[in-house]
């Protein structure tokens, strides 16, 4: 069991700029309703702290909003966008719901799985670069098959487009880290 002190010691701070952004979000809601900011703050926290929500991150969010940690856990586990475990550098979330299935999302999922050399949805490629997930209807039904990576939608997918996409993200990563 982790003590509260330990959690606090581990808790990551936001930069001043991010803290101001969080304050701005809180101000959008009436006084005493700061809990309303939780989803947006969780999105910000996930982006800032390694692409996933560790218990420490969630406890930090709780302290920012002046609510109990369990209230954050309840919310973070309810909504599917939040990663509760570490992921690869980029997460490919392929829509698999009806309209996308009709235009070949199953094949795209299979293709990405093979390409990444993983056996199951949810796994990460050996180089730690890509995690493959599936998502339910992302509202791109007329432009499928499609996937979401971060905030971006990639539509009309074909195997060739998937290849190009992976190259694009790989080079993006190496540019950013060199």
């Amino acid at each position, binding site marked *: 069991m982790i003590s509260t002190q330990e959690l606090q010691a581990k808790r990551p701070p936001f930069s001043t700029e991010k803290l101001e952004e969080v304050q701005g979000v809180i101000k*959008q809601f009436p006084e005493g*309703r700061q*809990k309303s900011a939780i989803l*947006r703050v969780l999105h910000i926290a996930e982006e800032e702290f390694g692409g996933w929500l560790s218990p420490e991150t969630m406890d930090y969010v709780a302290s920012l909003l002046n609510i109990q940690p369990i209230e954050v856990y309840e919310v973070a586990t*309810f909504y599917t*966008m939040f990663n509760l475990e570490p992921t690869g550098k980029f997460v490919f979330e392929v829509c698999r719901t*009806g309209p996308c299935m009709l235009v070949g999302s199953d094949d795209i999922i299979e293709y990405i799985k093979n390409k990444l050399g993983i056996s199951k949805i949810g796994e990460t490629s050996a180089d730690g670069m890509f995690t493959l997930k599936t998502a*339910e209807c992302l509202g791109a*039904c*007329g432009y499928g098959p499609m996937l979401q990576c971060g905030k971006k939608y990639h539509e009309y997918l074909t195997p060739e487009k998937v290849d190009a996409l992976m190259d694009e993200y790989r080079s993006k990563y190496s540019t950013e880290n060199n």
Partner: protein
Amino acid sequence: MGRKLLLEHIDVPGIETFDVYRNHGGYKSVEKALKTMSPQEVVEEVQKSALKGRGGAGFPTGMKWSFLAKPEGVPRYLVCNADESEPGTFKDRYLMEKLPHLLIEGMITSSYALGANTSYIYIRGEYYFILEILEKAIDEAYAKGFLGKNILGSGYDLDLYVAPGGGAYICGEETALLESLEGKRGNPRMKPPFPAIKGLYGCPTVVNNVESIAAVVPIINIGADEYLKIGTEKSSGTKLISACGNLARPGVYEIELGLSVEEFIYGDDWCRGIANGKKIKALIPGGSSVPILPAHLITKTATGETRYMSYESLSDGGFASGSMLGSGGFIAFDEDQCIVRNTWNFARFYSHESCGQCSPCREGTAWMEKVLRRIENGEGNMRDIDLLADINKKIEGNTICPLGDAAAWPVAAAIRHFREEFEWHVTHPQDALKGNYGLLSMPSITL
């Protein structure tokens, strides 16, 4: 092509910016409403237009507005439901992405009508990129004096914010949306009380779909009388249709309600038929929650009348031989598609999206998903088909919110119209496994 009330200027370069939008007649409804109409007059105009909620349920928007309680000293809220998640529906996204100012304009006019001084657009978290587009547009509107204090010198104040969800279909249900906006799990509330009495933070609240709010703009601009001339007697105005599935030209189309289904599917101005020259096998006309129609009930009703894109014509025949306009998520299936696989896919969707609060939905949707998966995988037996029909009867009407019904209806309709295909999966497990979708087993369907 019919009249365009919402998407008229969608192809104008730069229409997402304030200036271009304004030069094309943008924000006129705000001027008209704030300068020449009382809030009550705006409400009455919308009521008179007979606009039906464009989110899926089709409840008259003006009537919803008229229910709003107005106790002294209590704030009222307008919340825009931009949690578009109904499979097959992507019209709100299109509208917000291309015409952010149209939604903002609608929000200002509608908020004025309802007496709300703070309004929110709750947008699904996956549309974060659209949230950024909207916020940019909102900043512009503030800078030009259309938001903030004393708008256009009218004395009316409005603050408008955008709040993201986190990935949950159920937050499209209005009370789940309000829970989520309050920072909680998206569990639908028990009704009554309805949001019009007790909504956001316990205050009177109206929740409207993006397209409904956008439609307020032309209604105020051209007037309800003119609006009523468009569409049919029972379905006024235009509607955005999200055409998808195996259509030759999928996309978002604005139609005048009353266009024939045949014209919409095969017309050159619209979807141009089924992709790759194939035949149509089935159609879901209003998003995944509405009943599927087999080929022979798509362009004609059971009594042989022409089927139109309208609330009344698509539901002609009730659940026995009709469907619903719903959200306008228009999903076409070509002759090679497997109805069982698709039914299973949607059942999985609903099970995945059930909030888990009430037992019939939590347990029932998951149960249906498992049974359907077995049938699809060639591991089903005949009694499973009756079992499915029975489970969905036990979910329907017994849940806190309509997600239970939304999960039950598609399964019921698929079994009703395609029972032979389900049976074929049971009797031909090897073929079902190989993914041969068993068209041959359906002699009753003429393609």
